[in-house]
């Protein structure tokens, strides 16, 4: 995926003119948010569960290396091949080697934000492998050659008519008119691919350190196909997704689907414990787990920004964000959008490369109120803004900020400064915006005169 985070402002200017996109986003995000609110009411543990989830993530991040080693040991005991990839290139190379050695021609993939992040499809495509995204939304944007616009609904910005024309153009089918027909086109087309594919690639929502279990949530069944039919299954997972065991998994399973789509449970939750055993009728002969770092351990070393790694990728913060709803996912210029994108993209790509993203927030705090793991997103965005200013502000900008900071420490200087501004406005009215008026007295003066004794 091309990184276009530098063009946030231009893209935002265009996006705010796009009424159709905003309409689609408004419908989707409102639906998700309302369902989320409703389904949280039925949760016996209520919002306290989010505090518990936060605590679990904090504990894991404090001892991440211990949990990763435990995961490696227990997964290997189940027959899983575990590979720790320092970056996207290393992960991609590992998969390409596997494809070459096993002479694989076709790969099926289930939805994974992590593989979007490392641009895996492009790499494999360049190497001549046929790669198919199998989640319906991902399949649509793959055919359209677009990045996802929402973590949970990658194609929510696309209208049914656009999709119908896209399928007709790319797959040679008639222009269908109902969502049912279009879904069936994808179902039939991809089913053949599951049968042909030698390799299935998935993400993983969680991995249990104690038992080596990989956990994958989905609604369509495509991830089950990708992890059952091809002879080899490769799961690509960010190192931050490890959790201790099934007790903690229960907490996250109760939160994740509720936060993402407002379901009590995703339709399918697959707990994968290594390759298929001999007495079983199907399932992969090999399972590989790629533990991807790609900048995560750098974030881990930063005690202030570390909670950024708690994210479950549920998309709830996108659904309540007033900025995301107006500019849409593509404006953010990379795999992750919305409040969580504004928070993690600059940390992955470099503060200055994505310097506009942390500014794209009103700091209203709605994201923090729905986050299932209670990441204090607005606080962390402020911290990023501070660091960006330190690193990257121009000399002039820095001087103004220093002057302002000094001024604020001395009430008398503030009074003098505004007295001066007011005088200047009186002397040179044309230099100031029309309609700008100053009250007779400053608040300070007014208070001096009026305050009760």
């Amino acid at each position, binding site marked *: 995926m091309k990184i276009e985070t530098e063009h946030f402002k231009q893209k935002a200017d265009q996006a705010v003119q796009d009424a159709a996109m905003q309409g689609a986003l408004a*419908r989707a995000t409102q639906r998700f948010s309302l369902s989320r609110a409703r389904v949280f009411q039925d949760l016996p543990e209520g919002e306290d569960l989010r505090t518990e989830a936060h605590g679990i993530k904090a504990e894991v991040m404090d001892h991440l290396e211990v949990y990763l080693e435990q995961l490696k040991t227990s997964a290997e005991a189940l027959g899983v091949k575990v590979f720790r990839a320092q970056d996207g290139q290393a992960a991609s190379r590992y998969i390409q080697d596997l494809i070459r050695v096993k002479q694989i021609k076709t790969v099926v993939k289930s939805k994974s934000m992590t593989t979007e992040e490392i641009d895996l499809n492009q790499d494999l495509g360049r190497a001549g492998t046929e790669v198919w995204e199998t989640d319906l*939304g991902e399949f649509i944007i793959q055919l359209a050659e677009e990045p996802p616009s929402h973590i949970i609904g990658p194609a*929510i910005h*696309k209208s049914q008519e656009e999709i119908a024309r896209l399928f007709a153009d790319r797959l040679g089918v008639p222009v269908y008119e109902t*969502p049912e027909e279009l879904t069936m086109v994808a179902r039939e087309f991809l089913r053949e691919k599951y*049968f042909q594919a030698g390799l299935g690639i998935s993400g993983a929502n969680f991995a249990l350190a104690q038992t080596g279990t990989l956990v994958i949530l989905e*609604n369509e069944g495509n991830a089950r196909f990708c992890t*059952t039919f091809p002879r080899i299954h490769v799961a690509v997972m960010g190192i931050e997704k490890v959790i201790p065991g099934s007790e903690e998994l229960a907490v996250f399973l109760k939160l994740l689907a509720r936060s993402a789509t407002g379901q009590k*449970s995703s339709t*399918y939750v697959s707990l994968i414990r290594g390759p298929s055993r001999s007495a079983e009728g199907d399932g992969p002969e090999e399972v590989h787990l790629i533990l991807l770092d790609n900048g995560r351990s750098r974030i881990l070393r930063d005690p202030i920004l570390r909670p950024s790694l708690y994210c479950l990728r549920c998309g709830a913060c996108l659904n309540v964000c007033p900025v995301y709803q107006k500019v849409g996912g593509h404006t953010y210029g990379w795999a992750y959008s919305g409040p969580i994108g504004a928070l993690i993209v600059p940390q992955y790509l470099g503060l200055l490369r994505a310097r506009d993203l942390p500014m794209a927030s009103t700091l209203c705090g709605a994201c923090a109120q729905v986050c299932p793991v209670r990441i204090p997103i607005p606080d962390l965005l402020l911290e990023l803004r501070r660091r960006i200013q330190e690193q990257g502000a121009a000399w002039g900008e820095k001087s103004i900020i220093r002057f302002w900071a000094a001024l604020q420490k001395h009430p008398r200087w503030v009074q003098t400064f505004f007295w001066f501004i007011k005088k200047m406005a009186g002397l040179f009215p044309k230099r100031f915006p029309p309609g700008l008026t100053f009250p007779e007295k400053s608040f300070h003066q007014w208070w001096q005169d009026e305050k009760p004794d």
Partner: protein
Amino acid sequence: MKSQTDLLKQLEQELLYLQAKTYRAHSPGELEGLLDALGAPYAPEKIAVEDRPFLRDLNWVRSRTGPGVNHRDNHWEAVRSIALGLTGVDYALADTGTLILFAGTSKGRWVSLAPRIHVALLPLGRILPSMDEFFPLLATPDILASSGSAVTFITGASRTADIELNLVMGAHGPKELHVITLLFPTGG
């Protein structure tokens, strides 16, 4: 604590909400009748059954279904043509309407995934209140060993809302889920 019957009621309510169909079989005879009705439109070679002892012993399975399909042996054509998959259920969770299937006991994960219709037979005693009761069970050595390489939670039939938020059933997996609860002893 809730009785099994209360749990069943809760489970059925959740399944209804998920657009699954629920049935109760009070006797083996009733079960055969329900399977006859559900399987009537399909020729024996269009029906696949999981390889579980209890299912093997059903008259209906012996008389109305074709030879077993094992996709390891390159039976793609057969998998493609199957319309109805009949499976057992290892556990169910009442609070979410979830069916849990073990790869170890089912001996074929595809039967609950690839056919257009999934019919699941659930022994009443296997309904648990929630996953908080399931996970400690799964941690016991016997059950863990029988679970095999995959434990699958199934909550309703396959679905998507990726096209303008329209709910479409049968995205990749089954379009219909039918759950028959067995109210008689099944010996396993």
